[in-house]
């Protein structure tokens, strides 16, 4: 008898016929609602933050025009003024700036660190939907005369609950991102080899995880007190005072930490050079993050903060860290002249705004200038938040080939950067200067007309109108790019249109369901794609 043993035929079927393991089979709305894919969730965060951005910039412009004539409340009533004031601040930080960065990070960080998915994907998806619904309730609470300054006690309670839920959702999303960076990196990618944007997100999310729960604790006490007896700080007038620390320095800087990562990654790619002092860049980013922890600035603990040497020191050292970033970026640019592009223009504007914010922050804490509790502080806050949003926008522009398959127009990116710079300069000039003229931070009653302040308020309002224009141009450019990405063939969707250095550029645009067709090769340096090019050469 002849026995012939041969290997079974294990030839793989053509790739297109083999769906990836556990790949989703549903399509349409169910796929959107039930998806735990970080790419879907990241896109949802970004799109939703953009919608909130357009709405809130409009509100900010309205506030500016109200400030134009301080002898009476003509556009908004005095109560509504306080409500719009608080909504514009809560929205700018918790519905736009932090969510925009979380969206970019949810999409990009797993790709940058070579992971197949985000860590805790169900938590990531649940946090987005919780945030979206809670954000809607938060805005809705104003519609029923709630929120700080509102006249409806239950509306105020609803605002407190919704704000608390927004914070819980943001913290949960932060946990997913931070865990991905810490625990799900590709083989060989030590923490020191982590891409700089991922590192900045690790710093930022760690700070959000550590500081936002303190704000949630404040809200819990305010909520219980407001509902039962108003013994402590739950009176209607106290609600805003108890949470306002989250919108002043140093805490406000936590929203801008990822600007460091975006600027460093975008500049390195545009220059085509490895960042030489990347560990210094990591230290500077970490230091800026540590200094931004501001929960100790609660009014209960630091009513006399302006006399606190630590408070003054933090403000000025924060400025030094931003100058440190300038040195590091300058070193890279000095070696290789960067190619001009939309993301680079936005990143540069983002950096300039952050620099302006920290300079203004340094002056704001000097007791002798008596700028605290004036519009100067509002100008400083707006500069910081605008730096963060512009940084997030630079990130969206830079990673759009991965997000949507196609680049957005560089010319449009440049135009948006120019508009943001113009608008933000007008806003900052109006607010900082009127603050120097003793314009109060929150004018709840009609006040005496003073020379110059009204003109400066008009200037700030015009600045917000320019910013609305910038947001509209950005939204249109991104929509055009997304449409092109959806309709173009794969050969028109290059994997690496920028000449990137990190792993996300080694996969297709957009990436497949599980991110990489093959597991990434062991990472040997912080710029693994440069290694591949050099090996090939």
């Amino acid at each position, binding site marked *: 008898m002849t026995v012939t043993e041969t290997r079974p035929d294990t030839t793989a079927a053509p790739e297109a016929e083999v769906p990836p393991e556990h790949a989703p089979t549903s399509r349409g709305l169910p796929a959107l609602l039930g998806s735990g894919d970080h790419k879907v969730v990241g896109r949802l965060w970004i799109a939703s933050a953009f919608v909130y951005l357009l709405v809130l910039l409009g509100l900010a412009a309205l506030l500016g025009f109200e400030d134009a004539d301080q002898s009476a409340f003509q556009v908004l009533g005095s109560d509504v003024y306080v409500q719009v004031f608080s909504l514009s601040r809560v929205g700018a930080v918790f519905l736009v700036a932090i969510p925009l960065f979380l969206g970019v990070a949810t999409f990009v960080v797993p790709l940058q660190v070579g992971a197949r998915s985000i860590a805790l994907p169900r938590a990531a998806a649940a946090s987005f939907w919780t945030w979206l619904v809670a954000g809607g309730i938060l805005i809705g609470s104003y519609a029923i005369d709630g929120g700080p300054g509102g006249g409806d006690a239950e509306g105020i309670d609803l605002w407190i609950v919704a704000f608390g839920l927004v914070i819980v959702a943001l913290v949960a999303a932060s*946990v997913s991102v931070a865990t991905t960076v810490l*625990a799900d990196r590709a083989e060989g990618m030590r923490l020191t080899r982590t891409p700089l944007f991922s590192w900045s997100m690790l710093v930022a999310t760690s700070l959000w995880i550590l500081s936002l729960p303190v704000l949630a604790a404040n809200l*819990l*006490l305010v909520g219980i007190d407001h509902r039962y007896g108003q013994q402590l700080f739950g009176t209607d007038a106290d609600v805003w005072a108890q949470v306002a620390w989250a919108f002043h320095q140093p805490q406000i800087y936590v929203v801008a930490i990822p600007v460091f990562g975006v600027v460093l990654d975008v500049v390195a790619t545009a220059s085509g050079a490895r960042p030489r002092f990347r560990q210094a860049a990591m230290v500077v980013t970490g230091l800026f993050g540590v200094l931004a922890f501001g929960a100790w600035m*609660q009014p209960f603990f630091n009513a006399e903060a302006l006399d606190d040497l630590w408070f003054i020191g933090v403000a000025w050292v924060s400025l030094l860290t931003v100058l440190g970033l300038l040195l590091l970026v300058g070193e890279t640019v000095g070696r290789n002249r960067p190619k001009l592009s939309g993301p680079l223009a936005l990143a540069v504007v983002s950096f300039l705004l952050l620099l302006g914010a920290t300079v203004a922050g340094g002056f704001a804490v000097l007791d002798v200038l008596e700028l605290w509790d004036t519009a100067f502080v509002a100008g400083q806050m707006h500069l910081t938040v605008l730096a963060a949003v512009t940084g997030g926008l630079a990130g969206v522009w830079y990673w759009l080939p991965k997000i949507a398959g196609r680049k957005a127009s560089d010319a449009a990116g440049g135009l948006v950067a120019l508009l943001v710079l113009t608008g933000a300069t007008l806003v900052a000039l109006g607010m900082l200067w009127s603050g120097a003229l003793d314009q109060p931070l929150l004018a709840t009653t009609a006040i005496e007309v003073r020379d110059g302040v009204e003109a400066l308020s008009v200037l700030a309002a015009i600045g917000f109108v320019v910013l609305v224009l910038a947001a509209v141009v950005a939204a249109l450019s991104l929509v055009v790019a997304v449409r092109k990405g959806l309709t173009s063939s794969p050969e028109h969707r290059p994997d690496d249109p920028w000449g990137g250095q990190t792993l996300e550029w080694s996969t297709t645009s957009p990436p497949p369901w599980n991110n990489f067709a093959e597991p990434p090769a062991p990472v040997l340096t912080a710029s693994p794609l440069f290694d591949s090019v050099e090996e090939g050469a």
Partner: protein
Amino acid sequence: MAVATRPVPALAPPPQPRRPRVLLVGTAFAVAAVAMSFMGLLGIYVKVRAEAIAGGGTWLPEGVTIPLTPPNVAMATLLMSVVTMQWAIYAIGNRDRTNAYVALAITILLGAAFANSTAYLYSQMGLVVADSVVGVLIYAISGAHLVLTVAALLYLGLVALRALGGEYTPTDREGLSSAALLWYGTVAVYSLIWYIVFITK
């Protein structure tokens, strides 16, 4: 003539790639967030109490007493649950599933007993939330901890069911470890509440 080829030896399965410990790291971040929120609550409690006492007043409202026995029993209960939780992890590490099931069940029971003792304390204190600052603070802090305890118990219950379903081995017990981490965090937070709120009052 047919030629018999050599049989192909069965290839050893490739080693499993090291599984990232995402659940444990994620839980550690969550515990850090929870700890910070309680730090915030307790910080305000300590500050308000110090100001009240410095102003010459008394902290607890008239007619309110916080008995020591229920919080002491609650603290002891939670400390015992730490031991049983560690016992469960140790048992899984030694492939002793029976002991692991018993230890997990006792931990959950002790957690439920803790919740019961907190409810009993509420009934004994005679403190009304709307009557004083103390009421707002104590109910906010201990109530938030009760919610945390229930969440941790649910997580423990889920892990126990998974263990009963055959999950967790000496080399793969991350789910159990992460539940234990959350439980230890819950106990650590209570130890602060016990000392600051109930012992030093």
